[in-house]
Structure formats: structure tokens, C-alpha cells
């Protein structure tokens, strides 16, 4: 009996995803919007595992998505010649995306996670720039020319299956990743990791004195978050648009988007990234229709207002409002 209430907070999150899926399936012309919203929710969920729980801001987060994109791209372009592998190269691509984002997160984490606050931010702000210029400068993985693998994908899967993968199954995989990230977040929150990270977020020195191995838990959260980013890059970028160019996949604006989503919804909450992703995605979508090119101009002051006036985010405020009522079980 005790196990059931533990996972109650997943109900609103999964309900939101289910509604998005049903709307996309059944309403004409909604698929594109819903797939974008799903991507933002998933991005927020994945980013929240680290930023929300630890309070550290990783300004180089998009590098993990970029590396995941490269993982999938490399698998498809380099393995396409081995015909016996068939569609397995997609599976291998996911594996490679995870391995590569894990390795990068370990490398970055080994240096950056020794640092705190401002120093951590400074170390990570260069990560995506550094990685992008390594790819371009040393001309590895086709350098600045990038990779286009539409033809390879068609060759392996056939034109129809490849098209279905790009337009339908990639979005379904994003949905699965988003749900998985939410589940893992809750598992972490309800385990030793979550308590350790909460202690760390409140006061790192005190947590250390209490005998908590903060480094260990920080690394776990960092790698988990990076892994989800890698998977997301492999699906939402590599499979949906079968090409990869360094300046595009290491574009810092995606990191800002992740930060906005998490802050808007409420850092360190389970429901926050979903609410943030929906609010941000919907407003971005309609702004791009009514005021194209002005999204960032509007969002930048919005973040400032949130930081100054509502540092807890939407879900943080909801949590405070529903405290003590029956709703509190669902909002975490």
C-alpha cells in the first residue's frame, strides 16, 4: 500500500503527455505543435534532473544534445555499408548517443563538478563552444561541413519507413524519453539521491559535514541528465531532421530555452518542466506566428521578471497554495 502513493505525482505528468498524444493523433494539423511541445517538456525534464535538483546551472547543456545527435549521425553514416545490420543501426545509434553523452558528461563533470556556483557556470559556458570548435577545427566528423544522412536512412529502411520514422516514430520516441525522464526524476526524488541533492542545494558545506558524499550524487544527476539529452538529440534532432551541422547543434539558445522552461515551471519540481514546457512552447509557437523574430526579445525580460518576482516558478507557487490539501499528493 505504501508504494502506491509514492508514484501519485506521476499522474498529472503522464496525463499531460497522454493528452498531448491524443490531441496530436486525433486533431488535424496539431501534430507539429504537439511534437514541439513534447520536445520542450522532454528537454525541461532532462535538464531539471541536474539543474533543478542541484541548483547548479549548466550553461553548456546543449552540448550533450549535440553529441547525441552526432552519435546517431555517425552510426547511420558509418554503418550504412554493413547491410546485414539493417534497422539495427538506429538502435546502435541510440547506444552510441548515450555512450558519447555519458563520456562527455564524465569528462566535463570531472573538471566542472569540483567547482561551485559561478565557477561551475564559467566552466560549462565554454563546453558547447569548445566542443563545436574542436569538431570544426580538427575536422573530425566532417568538420564544419556536417553530415547529411537522408539518403543513407532511405537506403537502410526504404523510403516509406524512413519517412514514417522522421515524421511519426521520432516524436513517439521523444514522448517515451519525456515520460522516462519524469519517472527517473521521481525515483531520484524519493530516494537517497534526492535527499542528498536537496541537502546540497540548501547548503553544500553543511551537507558535506553531515557525511553526505555530495560529489557522488552530483555526478549521478549530471550523467543522468546528460544521457537523456543525448537520447533527445538522437531522436528530436538526428532522426527528425536527418542532418547535423556543428553551429546548429551547439547553438547556446537551446540551453537558454531549457533554463527558461525549468525556471518558468519551477526548478526541482516534477511537474515544473511539463508546465514550463507547455507555457513556453505554446507562447513561442503563437509568438512566432503573430510576431515572428521577437520571441527572445519578449522572453528575456520575462525571465528577468520570473527571477526577481517568482523565483519558485508556477509549480512552486501551486505547491505553496495546495499545501495541506488533497491536491498536494499530486503536485511535487
Amino acid at each position: 500500500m505504501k508504494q502506491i502513493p509514492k508514484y501519485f505525482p506521476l499522474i498529472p505528468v503522464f496525463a499531460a503527455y497522454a493528452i498531448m498524444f491524443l490531441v496530436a493523433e486525433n486533431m488535424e494539423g496539431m501534430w507539429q505543435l504537439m511534437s514541439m511541445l513534447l520536445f520542450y517538456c522532454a528537454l525541461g525534464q532532462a535538464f531539471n534532473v541536474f539543474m533543478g535538483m542541484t541548483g547548479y546551472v549548466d550553461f553548456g547543456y546543449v552540448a550533450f544534445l549535440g553529441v547525441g545527435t552526432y552519435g546517431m549521425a555517425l552510426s547511420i553514416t558509418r554503418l550504412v555499408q554493413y547491410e546485414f545490420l539493417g534497422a539495427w543501426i538506429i538502435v546502435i545509434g541510440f547506444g552510441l548517443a548515450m555512450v558519447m553523452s555519458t563520456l562527455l558528461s564524465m569528462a566535463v563533470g570531472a573538471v566542472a563538478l569540483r567547482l561551485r556556483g559561478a565557477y561551475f557556470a564559467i566552466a560549462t559556458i565554454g563546453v558547447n563552444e569548445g566542443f563545436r570548435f574542436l569538431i570544426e577545427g580538427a575536422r573530425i566528423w566532417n568538420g564544419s561541413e556536417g553530415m547529411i544522412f537522408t539518403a543513407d536512412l532511405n537506403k537502410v529502411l526504404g523510403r516509406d519507413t524512413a519517412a514514417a520514422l522522421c515524421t511519426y516514430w521520432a516524436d513517439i520516441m521523444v514522448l517515451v524519453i519525456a515520460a522516462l525522464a519524469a519517472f527517473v526524476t521521481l525515483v531520484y526524488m524519493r530516494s537517497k539521491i534526492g535527499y542528498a541533492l536537496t541537502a546540497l542545494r540548501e547548503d553544500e558545506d553543511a551537507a558535506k559535514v553531515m557525511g553526505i558524499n555530495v560529489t557522488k550524487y552530483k555526478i549521478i544527476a549530471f550523467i543522468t541528465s546528460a544521457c537523456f539529452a543525448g537520447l533527445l538529440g538522437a531522436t528530436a534532432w538526428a532522426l527528425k531532421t536527418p542532418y547535423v551541422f556543428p553551429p546548429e547543434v551547439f547553438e547556446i539558445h537551446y540551453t537558454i530555452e531549457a533554463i527558461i522552461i525549468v525556471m518558468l515551471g519551477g526548478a526541482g519540481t516534477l511537474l515544473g518542466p511539463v508546465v514550463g514546457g507547455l507555457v513556453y512552447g505554446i507562447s513561442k509557437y503563437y509568438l512566432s506566428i503573430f510576431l515572428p523574430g521577437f520571441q527572445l526579445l519578449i522572453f528575456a525580460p520575462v525571465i528577468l521578471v520570473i527571477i526577481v518576482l517568482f523565483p519558485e516558478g508556477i509549480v512552486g507557487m501551486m505547491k505553496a497554495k495546495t499545501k495541506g490539501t488533497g491536491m498536494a499528493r499530486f503536485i511535487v
Partner: protein
Amino acid sequence: MFFEQLGGNLIQGVVLGAVYGMATMGLSLIFGVLKVVNVGHGAFIMVGAFVTLFLFSSLGISPIIAIPVAFMVGMGLGFIFYYTTIRKLIKAPELATLLATFSIGVLLEELIKLIFGSEFRGYNWAVGKIDLGITVLPMSKLYACIGSILIAVLLFLWFKKTRAGSAVRSVVEDSEGARVCGINVGGAYALSFSLGIGLTVASGVLLTMFIPVGINPYMGGGYTLKAFVIAVLGGLSSPYGAFFGGLVFGLIENGSYTLFAYIPGVEPFALTRFLSFVILLVILLIRPTGILSAK
């Protein structure tokens, strides 16, 4: 041949390095006094570049005059952002000020894009050049270098000789103690923040003398990273450390460019930017305690 090339590039490196140093002093000043990392640093440099471009292209005013104009613009922006956001976040967790300065940077970029458009622009300030034998140095770059050194000296004198300067120094030493002694700590914060932003915007003017056609709203990103590397080289909280860090960085950047250009099959420019990232991580790795204790 190689050594001539290296020597020429190193001379260019020193000249550029002085400007880099000047461009980082504002960042270090703000961190030193307020413990705020200005993640939107590059955007303020970009504003300075646009001030220069506007004055020169539209009004025909020399970039020399643009330096004080940009400084005043920067001071103004500094006061606005200090009193609207930064002041409310001084006591908040670091996360808040990082995100706030980041958003301020984005806001500036988007505003400038709205006014001037997003295409690359430049201007041509032809004031002759001098031939040093191994390299040719445009006079505009030399003026930028001299200007940087002058501004660094002026800042030094301001700190040492004026009441406001010593008030800021005492706040850095011990903000509680300064408050007890009757120093307006809030005022010192506001002044340091705006001074830092003023210096940064002014440095944007000097940097345009090195990038004749590279002015656009998003040019700042690369400078933010460079400024962090330089600031960390110089110890992050000292404006003078930043100045010397800039000189060292200019030498490393131009020297390594010469070396990378000899490796076949690589893009030397991209690699120098990768190298600056590696330097950043290495310094943070080998001296994290040293740098942290400077806090």
C-alpha cells in the same frame, strides 16, 4: 621564416592582448566587488561596437570620441540594470544572478537586432599603418592598444586617489566593516557595477578596431568565453590581474595560431578557440582551490 611569422604574430598578440585585458577588467571589477558573474559580458561589448558603428557610419564621428560616449552609455545601462534587477538579487543564490545577467545579455542582443538588423557590418577607419619589418601594424590597432593602457592607468588612479575609489576598495576588503564605518555599501555596489559595465562597453569600441567587418548583434558570445578565460588567468576578482591575463591570452592566441597553421588539414582559427576552452578548464582544474580561496 617561421620565427619571423611567430614574432610578427606575437607583436600583434601583445597589441590585441592589451585590448582583451581592458575588455575583461569590467568583468573582474564586478565579480570582485559584487561577487556577480556577468554572463552577459559579451553583449555589452557588442553594444560598444554598435555605438562606434553608429557614431562613425551615421554621424561621421571618430572612434576616439566613441570611447567616452560608449563609457557613458555603459554607465547608464549599468545603473538601469543594477537598480531594476541586480540589487534585488545580491542576496539570492548565485543561480539567480547568473540567469539574470544572461537574460540581460539576450535582451540587449535582441534590442540591437531590432534596431540595426542582424547582418554583419563594419566600418573603415583609415588612419595609416606602420611597417615593423616582420609585421604591419595598422595605426587604428595601435591607438586601441594605447587607449586600453591609458584606461587601465586611469582606473588604477581612480581606485587609489579618489574617495569613491577607496570606498569601493574598502567594500571589497570587508563589506560589513565598511558599512560600520559609514560607507554607503549599496552605492559602492551600484557604482562598481556601472563602472564595470561602462568599461566593458568602452572596450567594445576598441575591439571594433580589430574586427573591421565583424559587427553584428551576436558577436559577443565569443568574447564572453574569452573574457572568462582571461579573468580566470588573472585571478577573476582583480581588474589588474585581468589586464595582464589579457596580455598573456593575446600572446597564447596569436602564437598558437601560428603553430596550428603549420598542421595540415586543420582549421587554425577554430582550434585557437578550442584551445582557449582547454586553457579555461585546465586552470580551473589545477587551481580550483587557489581560485576559490581568492573569493
